[in-house]
């Protein structure tokens, strides 16, 4: 124990969700009655002696007594000069627009309160969203109001006038420097699918025909393009319809949480999963992902092993389907688990031939991509669940997307213009972008932040946020959206289109007129009216046409031969200390572009539950072999470089490999991200940007990682928390009274909304002398609000957590306070780990206020600050709360959050504009928790009342509305045809800790057992 870092949250219970972590972290199991809060959770602020503290306390009491008698300061009312059409002050409006990441958009609906955008939802009409929104969409609203955005043009490190800057980049000024044909002019963009950007680039090219255009994104893997080039002779991208799929095999892929179309894929898969027989999902991956929480079979494999597994899968399928192009008869060395996984996946794929999907992660090797294409073709999945389209991305697959060509050309450039992105931070060091960029005579960066690229630029022009700009963008399937602004640029920013127009000579072209012009020129303008398209957020029928290409089998056999080389022996990690390095995007910060967003920094990673840091992830076995514990620093030495960062042991991670995430260790003028994590770009190279091999060495230093996994621990009754149907496969949470018929529910053909004739619901109701609570059927209280969460659909992607934060003005607390267990999220996603002989499984459970009908918190509040409403809500009245925290101590679910400090006190003026005006911003010393989005409930009730009818439409809570898989259902139990009422009595429904007799209004639908066959 003495070796452990001081701030290490102590874990406590010998069973339940902590067990695996306890083992692997080699923490002694502490006594059963240790506190539920981590140490330090209630300690006073640092740096204050007890005596000073008491003095201050006395002084503040005296002042509080005085200030209580003073009226609130007088306020002013500032009406508009001219009223806006269709706008009534106080009534929010909603607009469709689209958010673009690496060139591909997701449609969103933005709520605007009196001209201030405050909340982002998915756009149900948009094919990439279908109504769901992910963590990046949800959190992007905060970036708009970031007070640290670039606010004026800069020359070097000094502010300058826009006029001076722009005069340097007019066509004549450029021509003087870069030659008449522009041979010394370079442009760097993020990958783009925008027809507007494409046409403006063409316009610039007519002026400077020899200019160089590059596209850079650190996640822009070329393997999909090159594989398709070999297989089909041209660059095509796979499209998938998960509604048609009876079996899905994911090879290093996380289609339900991180692909460009992940919201749609998750929605489609969950729709399919609600029907019977449910589709099977087989996942092979390095590190557990949201997708694999739903998997039936899962293996953790390092990248080299994934190639072998993919080859074996292909060989097995080809052999069993008697395909004419049989792979060479070579044995592929697989271990037992891999062998079993391949057998299961192959059997399923063959049985459901033409109704399966094989999908590979974009960062996987070309061989894996190629065999994925081959498998889909061989299984005749192409044409039903899988088809191909041209890539909407401009110049996809060309060398202009390779950082090498940028690096090679930079020496000969006089002027380089970087339009968004952050190439100086995200490029691998071997490209030497930073050195070469600093040496270029004139560099212009268009971007919103004073980041690494801005710092090295000779000129910096503030960019716009997508909520401030007009534009045309395309989704992964090619669907076209018109991006419309919600607010005028806050900081005099310019769009990419305006900047390109400037270079082409159109100095005063506005983004609006450019967009309008380009739209009118597009083929979709004939069938879609501008107004209707802006309102709807997407142009109808604008997806790219399907291509069903002919597969070149020689290419597949080439790839197979490469991969089928027999592996001499599995790498013995302990002996050689050699480990495979897997580098990918952070699930919360992506490549670092969201690093200055405190919501995303504080969002626990869906799997590791790590906040405010990155770490090298190891499997328990590898960590044990290397003698590493969580928090210990490790040095990873590749052939070119090395990096030191803390280790984090993750159950379910592949042995012999370690995962690193990009986006940390920022070197620019970041504020929130300053000093957070370690930059792992240093171990990337241009040849091996995502996969390499390293020597690992454990160091004798520790770093406290802010992991929320051990916070808000529920007493160890995992079977009661997660539901009995977990138990058939789960030795850890096994419960003797498990209901064996639960598995039947999934296979019975019953739609989950329909009650079966003979309910098989678990009946372990507590004994009670109380009458059941009376439920009114008319008048106020006729609605009885309740929620169900389907654990069979939840991937743990955490979009709901950010949606809740955005809707309910939840503050962030920072790394130090997270270490003390003070994070404020009203909703948390608990991770449970279990093992059977096939694999390590991750289960997730969203945990929020259960709105108990017999709420333990309500009895103990001395000031009636938490009450129960007639319509079944557990109410929290902030202005009554005096902060005794009795309620939190008495809550068995540990869902109440206390404002230890004035977390909203230092919120800057622009950030204040994001706050939802319908929700109180809580002060220090106040308890808070999930309210079931009572502001939305009351709004719906008032709207219904004004219209003179009962609440008819659905009342959506923020978490429910954003959920990509629709796992969360909210509504009134007494409403006619109530979905939530049906689900509450579903055979899989249970209440967490039912035997306590709290009668929660949140009911969970137990996860169906994994079905490996």
């Amino acid at each position, binding site marked *: 124990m003495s070796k452990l870092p001081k701030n290490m949250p102590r874990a406590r219970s010998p069973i339940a969700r902590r067990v695996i972590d306890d083992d692997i972290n080699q923490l002694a199991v502490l006594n059963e009655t240790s506190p539920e809060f981590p140490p330090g959770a209630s300690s006073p602020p640092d740096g204050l002696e007890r005596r000073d503290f008491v003095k201050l306390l006395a002084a503040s009491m005296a002042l509080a007594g005085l200030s*209580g*008698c003073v*009226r*609130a300061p*007088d*306020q*002013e*009312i*500032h*009406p*508009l*000069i*001219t*009223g806006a059409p269709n706008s*009534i*002050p*106080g*009534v929010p409006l909603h607009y469709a627009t689209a958010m673009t990441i690496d060139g591909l958009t997701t449609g969103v609906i933005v709520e605007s309160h009196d001209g201030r955008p405050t909340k982002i939802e998915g756009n149900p009409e948009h094919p990439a969203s279908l109504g769901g929104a992910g963590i990046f969409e949800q959190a992007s609203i905060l970036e708009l109001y970031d007070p640290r955005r670039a606010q004026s043009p800069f020359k070097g490190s000094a502010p300058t006038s826009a006029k001076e800057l722009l005069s340097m980049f007019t066509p004549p000024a450029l021509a003087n420097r870069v030659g008449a044909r522009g041979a010394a002019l370079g442009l760097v963009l993020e990958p783009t699918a925008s027809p507007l950007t494409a046409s403006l680039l063409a316009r610039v090219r007519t002026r400077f025909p020899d200019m160089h255009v590059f596209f850079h994104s650190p996640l822009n893997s070329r393997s999909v393009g090159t594989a398709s080039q070999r297989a089909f002779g041209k660059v095509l991208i796979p499209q998938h319809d998960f509604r048609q799929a009876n079996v899905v095999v994911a090879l290093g892929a996380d289609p339900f949480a991180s692909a460009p179309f992940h919201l749609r894929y998750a929605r489609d898969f969950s729709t399919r999963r609600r029907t019977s027989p449910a589709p099977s999902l087989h996942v092979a991956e390095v590190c557990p992902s949201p997708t694999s929480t739903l998997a039936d079979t899962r293996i953790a494999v390092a990248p080299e092993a994934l190639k072998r597994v993919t080859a074996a899968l292909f060989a097995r399928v080809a052999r069993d389907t008697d395909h004419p192009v049989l792979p060479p008869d070579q044995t592929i060395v697989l271990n037992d688990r891999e062998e079993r996984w391949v057998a299961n996946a192959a059997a399923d794929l063959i049985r459901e031939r033409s109704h399966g999907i094989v999908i590979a992660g974009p960062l996987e090797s070309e061989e894996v991509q190629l065999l994925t294409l081959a498998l889909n073709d061989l299984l005749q999945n192409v044409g039903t669940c899988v088809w191909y389209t041209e890539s909407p991305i401009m110049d996809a697959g060309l060398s202009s997307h390779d950082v090498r060509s940028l690096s090679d050309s930079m020496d000969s450039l006089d002027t380089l213009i970087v339009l968004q992105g952050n190439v100086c931070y995200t490029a691998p060091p071997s490209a030497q972008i930073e050195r070469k960029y600093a040496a270029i005579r004139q560099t212009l960066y268009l971007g919103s932040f004073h980041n690494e690229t801005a710092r090295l630029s000779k000129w910096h022009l503030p960019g716009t946020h997508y909520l401030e700009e007009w534009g045309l963008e395309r989704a992964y399937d090619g669907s076209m959206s018109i991006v419309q602004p919600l607010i005028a640029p806050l900081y005099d920013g310019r769009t990419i289109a305006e900047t390109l127009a400037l270079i082409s000579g159109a100095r005063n072209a506005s983004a609006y007129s450019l967009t309008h012009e380009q739209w009118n020129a597009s083929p979709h303008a004939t069938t879609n009216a501008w107004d209707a398209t802006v309102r709807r957020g997407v142009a109808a029928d604008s997806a790219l046409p399907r291509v069903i290409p002919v597969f070149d089998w020689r290419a597949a056999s080439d790839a197979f031969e490469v991969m089928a080389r027999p592996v001499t022996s599995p790498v013995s990690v302990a002996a050689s200390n050699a480990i495979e390095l897997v580098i990918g995007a952070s699930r919360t910060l992506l490549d670092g572009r969201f690093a200055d967003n405190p919501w995303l920094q504080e969002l626990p990673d869906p799997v590791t539950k790590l906040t405010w840091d990155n770490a090298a992830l190891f499997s328990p076995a590898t960590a044990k072999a290397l003698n590493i514990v969580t928090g210990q620093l490790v040095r990873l030495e590749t052939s070119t470089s090395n990096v030191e960062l803390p280790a984090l042991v993750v159950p379910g991670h592949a042995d012999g490999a370690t995962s690193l995430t990009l986006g940390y260790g920022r070197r620019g003028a970041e504020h929130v991200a300053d000093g957070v994590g370690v930059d792992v770009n240093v171990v990337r190279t241009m040849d091996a940007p995502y996969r390499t091999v390293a020597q690992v060495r454990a160091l004798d230093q520790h770093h406290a990682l802010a992991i929320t996994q051990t916070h808000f621990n529920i007493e160890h009754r995992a079977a009661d928390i997660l539901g009995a149907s977990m138990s058939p496969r789960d030795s850890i949470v096994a419960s003797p009274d498990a209901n064996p018929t639960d598995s039947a529910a999934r296979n019975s053909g019953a739609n989950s909304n329909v009650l079966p004739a003979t309910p098989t619901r678990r009946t372990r109701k507590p004994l009670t002398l109380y009458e059941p609570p009376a439920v009114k059927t008319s*008048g*106020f209280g006729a609605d009885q609000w309740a929620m169900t969460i389907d654990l069979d659909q939840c991937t743990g992607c955490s979009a709901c957590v950010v949606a809740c934060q955005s809707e309910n003005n939840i503050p962030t607390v920072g790394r130090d306070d997270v270490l003390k267990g003070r994070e404020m999220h009203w909703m948390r996603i608990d991770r449970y780990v279990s093992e059977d002989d096939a694999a390590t499984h991750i289960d997730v459970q969203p945990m929020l206020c259960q709105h108990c009908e017999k709420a333990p918190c309500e009895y103990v509040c001395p000031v009636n600050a938490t*009450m129960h*409403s*007639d*319509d079944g*809500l557990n*109410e929290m*009245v*902030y*202005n009554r709360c005096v902060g005794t925290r009795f309620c939190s101590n008495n809550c068995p679910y540990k869902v109440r959050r206390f404002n230890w400090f004035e977390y909203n006190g230092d919120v800057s003026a622009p950030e204040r504009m994001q706050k939802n005006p*319908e*929700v*109180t*911003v809580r002060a220090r010393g106040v308890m808070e928790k999930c*309210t079931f989005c*009572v*502001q939305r409930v*009351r709004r719906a009730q*008032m709207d219904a*009342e*004004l219209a003179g009818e009962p609440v008819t439409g659905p009342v959506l809570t923020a978490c429910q509305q954003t959920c990509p898989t629709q796992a969360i259902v909210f509504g009134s139990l007494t409403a006619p045809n109530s979905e939530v009422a049906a689900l509450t009595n579903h055979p899989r429904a249970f209440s967490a800790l039912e035997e306590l007799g709290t009668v929660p209004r949140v009911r969970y639908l137990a996860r169906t057992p994994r079905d490996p066959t």
Partner: protein
Amino acid sequence: MVWVRTPTARGENRMIRQPVAFDHRVHAAGLKISCEFCHSGADRSAHAGIPTTQECVGCHNDTWLASAAFTPVRASLASGVPIAWKRVTQLPDFVYFNHAMHVNKRVSCTECHGDVAAMPVVSQQRPLTMGWCVSCHVEAPQKYAARALTNCTTCHR
């Protein structure tokens, strides 16, 4: 403890000087303009709203606009800076009052604001304490044929 329970501490009857010498007596009593003509959000929004500068000028284009009393209005119109009216009826930030619900349930404006039509300078006429709000909410079924909403989250969220 006693002080906070006095009308003065609650801000009642405090004359508040507005940037424009607007007289409700002329408009509401004299010209019989209805409250909602200017406070147009009252039946549709949580906020009753203050008319925009343009709305003032809309009626006053021909009358009084050139007078000295209109200096702030003309200045606002020219500069685009709103007129900074002083709030008279001020509820705490943690109270979510909705005008539309009350107006549509036929709660008269004077019930909470007093007889504004008789006031040269508007002042707060009612205690605006929670006890005062709830006393009416309890009687809502008898007085307004409305539901008696007394749950905390009716007003606090």
